[in-house]
């Protein structure tokens, strides 16, 4: 008897999970249908598999270009965040004087500021830098990467700070006595030890930067610079929605996410949990 109830419970739960993923199923099956077939039955599998709509959607979204831009922005932003934030956090922990405490406090306290509060003045500041210093901060991937580093700094410093505090200093002291300078101590001894936190920071930042829409939409205006969320938004805004085409487009944007999830599921789940718990 107990076995049967257990079985039934499991079936219900699995059913619920499948229902949970139902929207993704809907997107997928309808991406192969023509308009007529789509409106005749939206839930049935397609009668034939054609990649025609994928090809069209790819063209309209300029998919490979957008994908490339997203990759560049995500990878470059994260590399810089990881490097600079770990360096900063290490110095702040190892020289825990008044100045360090103040800097750390500012990093942490500003995490609560919503993006909407600074978006407009940020655009003014970047416009000013462009006009007076002639550094192209707006409408360039470089400018977007720079701003991502600024916005990602707080959380990364916070996570590294917490982890570095728990590492004993003795190893670093031994290396110093052996004649290593601070740079070498950090890069050959400390940085490799930070790997668990580095993975956490990378995971959290991938999820954020890859999906970020508002900041890129404010800074990038060139068609050729669009990231994936931007090109999706323009694709949907352009015409009255042709849903079969739109479904192919949406599937295209979801596929990289699923590949990322399947490839790094363990790290992702761990990273997301660790990132939240330390908050």
């Amino acid at each position: 008897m107990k076995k049967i109830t257990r079985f039934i419970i499991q079936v219900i739960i699995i059913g619920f999970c499948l229902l949970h993923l139902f929207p993704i199923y809907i997107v997928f099956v309808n991406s192969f249908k023509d308009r007529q077939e789509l409106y005749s039955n939206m839930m049935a599998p397609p009668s034939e598999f054609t990649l025609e709509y994928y090809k069209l959607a790819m063209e309209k979204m300029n998919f490979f270009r957008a994908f490339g831009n997203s990759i560049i922005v995500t990878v470059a932003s994260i590399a810089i965040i990881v490097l600079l934030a770990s360096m900063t956090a290490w110095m702040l922990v190892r020289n825990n004087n008044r100045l360090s405490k103040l800097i750390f406090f500012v990093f942490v306290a500003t995490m609560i500021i919503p993006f909407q509060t600074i978006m407009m003045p940020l655009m003014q500041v970047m416009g000013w830098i462009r006009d007076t210093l002639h550094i192209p901060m707006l409408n360039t991937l470089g400018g977007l990467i720079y701003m991502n580093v600024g916005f990602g700094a707080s959380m990364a410093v916070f996570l590294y700070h917490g982890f570095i505090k728990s590492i004993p200093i003795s190893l670093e002291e031994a290396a110093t006595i052996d004649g290593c300078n601070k740079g070498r101590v950090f890069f050959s001894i400390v940085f490799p030890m930070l790997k668990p936190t580095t993975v956490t920071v990378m995971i959290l930042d991938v999820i954020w930067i890859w999906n970020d829409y508002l900041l890129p939409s404010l800074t990038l205006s060139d068609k050729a610079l669009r990231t994936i969320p931007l090109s999706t938004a323009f694709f949907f805004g352009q015409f009255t929605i042709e849903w079969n085409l739109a479904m192919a487009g949406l599937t295209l944007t979801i596929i990289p996410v699923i590949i990322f999830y399947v490839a790094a599921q363990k790290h992702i789940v761990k990273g997301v949990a660790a990132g939240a718990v330390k908050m």
Partner: protein
Amino acid sequence: MRKRKDKAWYVLFVIPLLFVFTTVVIVPFVIGIGYSFISWDGMPLNPKTFVGFDNYIRIFSDKRFLSSVTHTLLFTVISVLIINVIGLGFALVVTSRLRIRNAVRTMLFMPYLIGGLILGYIWKFIFTDLFKMIGEITGINNIFFSWLLNPRYALVAMIVVTTWQMAGYIMIIYINGIQSIPEDVVEAAKVDGAGFWRTLLHVKFPLIMPSFTICLFMTLSNCFKIFDVNVSLTGGGPNNSTEMMAMNIYNEIFSLNRYGYGQAKAIVFFIAVATITLIQVAITKKREVEM
């Protein structure tokens, strides 16, 4: 000599990030406060006139903004409750001894990785075309119709999508909390004769209070600041009935070109977010127990 060298290293390691951070976050935040006292249409050549607290006073008679505050509060309260209940429920399933727990975790967490913008578009199709079709086929027109055309149902649609996105994420945090409960405490409760519900309410829940703090914080601040789903799912419609605060601020600044006034709203928004989340953390922290 050595001291000076140490200082140089300190500067070399700390300044680069601090510089970027200052130009991207600190400076805009500070001059943003300045902008909120100014009337300006965003055109660089047009004058910026100082209007004192006028922008802030105007907010209180701005019907569209006040109704966006109402939507946001309503949306946030309901979403936070539902997300946490479902997330916790999921977590209890996944930490049970059922064989399917890993598959369940994998499937439930998935939507969190897809960005809010994309999710909104996916659900837009479901709430409009698919629901209409189901209504026509089954004849249950009072549930299955185009939800996004009805102000009340459009808000419910926002809640559904947000829950769908966040519940799996919140589940992960609760799982972490539940797994950190020492096995012997639960065993002791069982030996003392506590059933499933009593163990849950009187042993497990008090021990995962830190998870409640985190999850409430995450859901509160995420829901209060919701923007992407709003843009792609409802666009604030029908008739601004689902326009949330973040979107209202965006529209005020970049669509209506009232930069100063919009910035005053943005400052109010900041104060609201800070107050609400700090109060919540203070309250739930107090209830955490030490092991």
